[in-house]
């Protein structure tokens, strides 16, 4: 498949051309070091007769000689050359380790795959055998079996394999069960892949990191078992291995003389080197099998090439009446700091949430909306950092860059419904108790009474108050989380995607609850979501966020009817309507920007149908176009003002 598209080759490299490097520099370095160590040791073992002048079994010198030119590592108590013993011993120890590891791991893997895939009685029988093997006392098993199997090297290999296969089988099997649940396995089955492809490409391949780790572990233990057998006098007395060398060194009192330095240390060091070499190679193998490891984490636009200047002229365009505001935010800047530089996530945001009103904050993933939410609560975690930002939360001035000033408000005048609120409850406590716990944070009287009142308000039937979270439906759990957020009578509620993962019907009930609470408690609500139709059901005001900035802000009904920013317009056209003519969906072309590499000028310009040259030079600020609307787009601003004049 070399000549795929010769015509396009000038522009687009063919698929098979120089592939992207798969491993990180660290993994490549460690892999090479490990491979070199192992390679040299194996080479030395293979060439042992050529490298060492002496026969390892012959008495080639005086006993207890210190290292010399003739005897590089001296001699032992009967005058055998220790250097030669080290090299010849490597042959036995290494092949033993490699063969036992190979057998034990492949048996373990086969058992795990068969058990995980066949299930039923076969699985029960195999796993019973695994448990039986694991429950035997290791040493007793070794001693008993070695007397049956004899002392040959084959016997030792069989023995170690029998002792060692069960642990990898157990480890692999749980992973086989997990991997079989993954979507790509189901998809492969659905499109007619045969069993070999499913097992090899889709299941076993994903076990490679574990296989590598288990192989190293088993190889390590195999060498140790051989050494222990020799130590116990159960090894073959005529066999020269690192283990037997150590055994003789010990029994022949090497430690009482200086001889331990060249009798015990070299095989010990060699053993360590082999294990370290294996571990390094395994590191590279793991990364090869799972390229995600090369980056540490999924790169959700969190790493920059360089800090971009988030110069934000303090905008005067925030819409709303600051006098009656639950929340006023001005010039909030949050960056993710990393070794490679800073990624701006929130780039100078101004917001007003009026009391008794819901401000819907809409944005795509990566727009910075959740970062905004957590930094308002001082709940951001490193590497996120609030560079600057002033806020007034329910009348109290707060410096968002200093968590300590926010902490006293959290859970009191500031309520929070986090993302994934479905998992925000502790599974081992009854829900009433969890609401009471939240109530006890404040100094308000009667936590139990208030909790009951709130659970009632969010319409949890009384007979469910003592239920555990798993006994409740998703919608009910979400209501409990909202009850806990409101139990201390906050004046401001921040809710981050409170309905994600819920049914349409349940979503409606949660939204209705929030809008009722707004009215009954004259609560200010900051409601954050990517789902504009959902927000548009309840929001009084809307703020549209793009690449860390608010690009349009105003009355919700007004924006939905006459969006001014091209991005808002695109968003509104992304949602298919339930009624009316079925038009082709336009959506927004392209992908959200990479915050590490923001384009110059307006961040939306590359995707914008209305972009002009000037959009690419200067980043627009939020400008009021009407008393209730602000927009950050030079083209839209001109249009709006000219139509207002004309």
């Amino acid at each position, binding site marked *: *498949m070399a000549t*795929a*598209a010769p015509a396009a080759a000038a*522009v687009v*490299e*063919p*698929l*098979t*051309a120089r*592939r*992207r490097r798969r491993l990180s520099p660290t993994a490549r370095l460690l892999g090479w070091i490990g491979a070199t160590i192992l390679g040299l040791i194996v080479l030395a073992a293979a060439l042992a007769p050529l490298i060492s002048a002496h026969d390892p079994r012959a008495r080639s010198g005086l006993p207890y000689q210190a290292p010399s030119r003739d005897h590089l590592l001296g001699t032992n108590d009967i005058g055998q050359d220790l250097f030669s013993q080290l090299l010849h011993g490597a042959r036995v120890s290494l092949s033993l380790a490699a063969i036992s590891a190979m057998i034990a791991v492949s048996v373990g893997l086969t058992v795990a795959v068969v058990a995980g895939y066949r299930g039923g009685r076969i699985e029960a029988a195999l796993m019973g055998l695994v448990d039986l093997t694991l429950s035997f006392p290791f040493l007793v098993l070794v001693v008993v079996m070695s007397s049956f199997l004899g002392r040959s090297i084959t016997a030792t290999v069989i023995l170690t394999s029998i002792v060692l296969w069960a642990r990898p089988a157990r480890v692999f099997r749980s992973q086989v069960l997990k991997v079989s649940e*993954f*979507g*790509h396995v*189901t*998809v*492969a*089955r*659905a*499109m*007619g*892949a045969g069993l070999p*492809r499913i097992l090899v*490409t*889709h299941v076993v*391949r*994903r076990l490679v990191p574990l296989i590598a780790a288990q192989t190293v572990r088993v190889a390590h233990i195999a060498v140790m078992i051989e050494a222990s057998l020799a130590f116990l006098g159960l090894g073959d007395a005529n066999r020269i291995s690192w283990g037997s060398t150590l055994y003789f060194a010990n029994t022949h009192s090497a430690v009482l003389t200086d001889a331990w330095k060249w009798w015990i240390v070299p095989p010990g060091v060699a053993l360590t080197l082999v294990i370290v070499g294996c571990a390094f190679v395994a590191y590279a193998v793991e990364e090869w099998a799972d*390229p*995600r490891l090369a980056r540490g984490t999924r790169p959700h636009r969190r790493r920059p090439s360089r800090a971009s200047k988030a110069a934000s002229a303090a905008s005067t365009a925030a819409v709303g009446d600051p006098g009656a505001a639950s929340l006023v935010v001005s010039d909030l800047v949050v960056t993710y700091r990393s070794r490679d530089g800073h990624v701006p996530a929130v780039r100078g945001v101004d917001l007003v949430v009026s009391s008794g009103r819901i401000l819907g904050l809409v944005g*795509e*993933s990566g727009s910075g909306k959740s970062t905004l939410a957590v930094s308002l609560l001082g709940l951001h975690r490193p590497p996120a950092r609030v560079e600057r930002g002033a806020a007034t939360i329910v009348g109290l001035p707060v410096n968002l860059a200093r968590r300590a000033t926010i902490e006293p408000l959290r859970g009191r005048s500031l309520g929070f419904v986090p993302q994934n609120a479905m998992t925000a409850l502790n599974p081992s406590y009854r829900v009433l108790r969890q609401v009471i716990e939240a109530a006890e944070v404040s100094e308000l009287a009667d936590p139990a009474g208030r909790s009951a009142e709130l659970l009632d308000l969010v319409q949890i039937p009384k007979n469910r108050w003592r239920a555990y979270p798993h006994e*409740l*439906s*998703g*919608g*009910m759990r979400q209501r409990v989380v909202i009850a806990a957020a409101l139990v201390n009578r906050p004046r401001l509620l921040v809710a981050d995607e409170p309905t994600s993962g*819920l*049914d*349409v*019907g*349940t*979503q*409606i009930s949660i939204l*209705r609850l929030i*809008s009722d609470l707004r009215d009954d408690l004259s609560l200010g609500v900051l409601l954050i979501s*990517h789902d504009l139709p*959902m927000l*548009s*059901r309840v929001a009084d005001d809307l703020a549209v966020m793009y690449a860390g900035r608010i690009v349009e802000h105003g009355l*919700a*009904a007004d924006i939905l009817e006459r969006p001014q920013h091209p991005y808002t317009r695109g*968003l509104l056209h*992304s949602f*298919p*309507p*339930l009624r009316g003519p*079925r038009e082709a*969906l336009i*959506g927004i072309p392209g*992908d959200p920007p990479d915050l590490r590499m923001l384009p110059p000028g307006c961040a939306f310009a590359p995707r914008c149908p209305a972009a002009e040259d000037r959009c690419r030079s200067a980043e627009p600020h939020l400008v009021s176009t009407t008393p209730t609307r602000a927009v950050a787009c030079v083209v839209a601003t001109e249009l709006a003002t000219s139509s207002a004049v004309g």
Partner: protein
Amino acid sequence: MTEGALVQVVGVSKHYPAADRPVDAVDDINLSFGAGEIVGLVGPSGAGKSTLGRLMLGLESPDAGRVVVDGLDLAALGSRALRIARQRFHLLLQDPFSSLHPGLRIGTIIAEPMAIQGTPRAGRVRQVESSLQRVGLSPPADYARRFPHELSGGQLQRVAVARAYVARPRLMVADEPTSMLDASLRAGIIELLAALRDDVGTAIVFITHDLASARALCDRVVVMSAGRVVADQPPDDLIANPPNDLVAELVAASDFTPPDSDKTHMDNMTAMVHHGDNHNRR
């Protein structure tokens, strides 16, 4: 029963042992549709939509009834025959991070259906690249070299559609392919599925919560509730004249009407508040 239908589901039931999965059972379903048809399966979580989709691909076998695809009774096929039949099937899942093998390059992932179908190697690269181009991932050679974790969720879902292009299936089940994506990316995926049907003639079963998305894409919408079919109509009929209360509630919940402009829609929703809750237990 329609003559020459691509898929015929006849009296199919599938129940799970209570301890295993209490919901998502299907109960005496009858349904058939033709080649190239796009059928929406809409309903709350646990209504049995996914189970019905898996039954149509032979990933589950029914307790009662028959699933006949292209004249083949799936439950009666041997494992080899089923495998061959499935080469004309495809499955698109909700979570692209899970449905694409993280250890393989995008190019290899997209080429997999060809590897399964035994397409000659010579043409594979070109097909991979043209399908990437088709779903808007350009330059294709660059995307083909990447690993899944280097792409965003929306891009990955497009990769999954590109794989479907290469598979050229007769029948594809798309199980909530837009529900994990940003709402703003839904339109793009819906357009791609429509294009797949137009280009390849694939019949698509589009499973979703969202009636508006189903309307945008589907020729017909089947509404399910508690394992049964409660409506089966062209979407516009269904929305204009809901045949029963369950559908009426679904329509009310999906109605995207700006606040205040129509105060009554909130009141319409009140009816379904508890209904929705009951169906969302997991």
